[in-house]
Structures are given as C-alpha cells and as structure tokens.
C-alpha cells in the first residue's frame, strides 16, 4: 500500500482507537470520541497539506 492518504487514515485510526479506549469507559462515548479524534486528525492533515501546497520542496 503506497497511498500516502490511506496510510495517514490508517495511522489516525490506530491513534484515535487507543485514545478513545484510554480516555473513555463507556463504549458509546468511546465510539463518539474516537470518531471525533479520527475526523480531527484527517481534517487537520488535509488543511495542513493545502497550506503547505504553495511551498516548493
């Protein structure tokens, strides 16, 4: 798998999973918190990606 975006989502999934499991006790709250963290990770990556777009390597 060489898609950078897919790997980013996979990474964000694992991190948000562990965060949710640690931070919340109730399964529903874990699901809600995990989805929020996952969405925040992916959204932040997309926004930062576009912000870096004008800069040359």
């Amino acid at each position, binding site marked *: 798998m*060489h898609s950078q975006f897919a790997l980013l989502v*996979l*990474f964000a999934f*694992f*991190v948000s*999973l*562990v965060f949710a*499991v*640690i931070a919340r006790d109730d*399964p529903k709250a874990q699901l809600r918190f995990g989805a929020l963290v996952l969405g925040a990770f992916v959204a932040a990556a997309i926004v930062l990606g576009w912000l870096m777009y004008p800069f040359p390597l």
Partner: protein
Amino acid sequence: MPVPAATTPQRNQRNPRNPRHQPEPGSLVLLCLAAWAIPGAGHLWLGRRSKGVILLIALPLMFGIGLMLHGRLFPFTMAEPLVGLAAVANLCSGLVYFLAGLFGAGAGNVRAVTYEIGNTFLIVAGLLNLLVILDVYDVALGRK
C-alpha cells in the same frame, strides 16, 4: 413544566469498580512491567477485558504495519539524540520489539517510499504503549 431531576449522570460520583486504594509497590511494578511487555495485559490483569483485548490487537498490529512499511528499529546511540529517543520509543513497544530483532526485522529500507511512514508507525506504537502503561498505573491506584 417541571424539569425531571438528575437527568444527567453525576460527574463526580466515584466509580464503584475502582475504590481508591494503595496497591503494594511490588505488584504495581509487576503490573506496569506486564503492561509494557504485552500491550493490553495490564488492562486484562485489572479486569478491563474489552479495553485489554482492543489494545492487545491494535498496538502489535500497528508495530507490525510499521515493519511491513520498511520502518527501522533505531539503535541506542546518543551521538544522535533523536535516534536515541526513537530507540527508546521503539523499546516501549514491549516484547514485539525483541521478537522483531530475533527475526531480523526492523532493519529498515531507507530507499522505500514508505520508510518514514513505517518509522512513524513504529515510534508511535511504542509511545502509545507508554500511554497505556500510565493509564494502567492510574487505574491501579484508583484514579480512574
């Protein structure tokens, strides 16, 4: 219209599963060692089965994906402090770190496209396990 009383849970109510108590230091050390060696083992030990099973699957899987992405297990060297810190983070993954070394995995392939991503997976898997150990410590002390 009367408002029903106590429709929201009491936030400051003490969790009956975790009365505050002082475990023996020896057992606390053993618990943290188990949590380090096998991710999720600490939670399983404390009877938090679902959390333990999720961590037991997720963290070694993340470590394995890091290896599959040609990530590197960094050597302990203080000549380059960041490499030394990455090595410490790798070590926090527990027994899978030694298993990977035993099977010759984790050499890393710097020419692979996914090398840096693999490193990120390996390092973060270790750091997340460190966070899990701290969580186990808090649970054992009755703070959570």
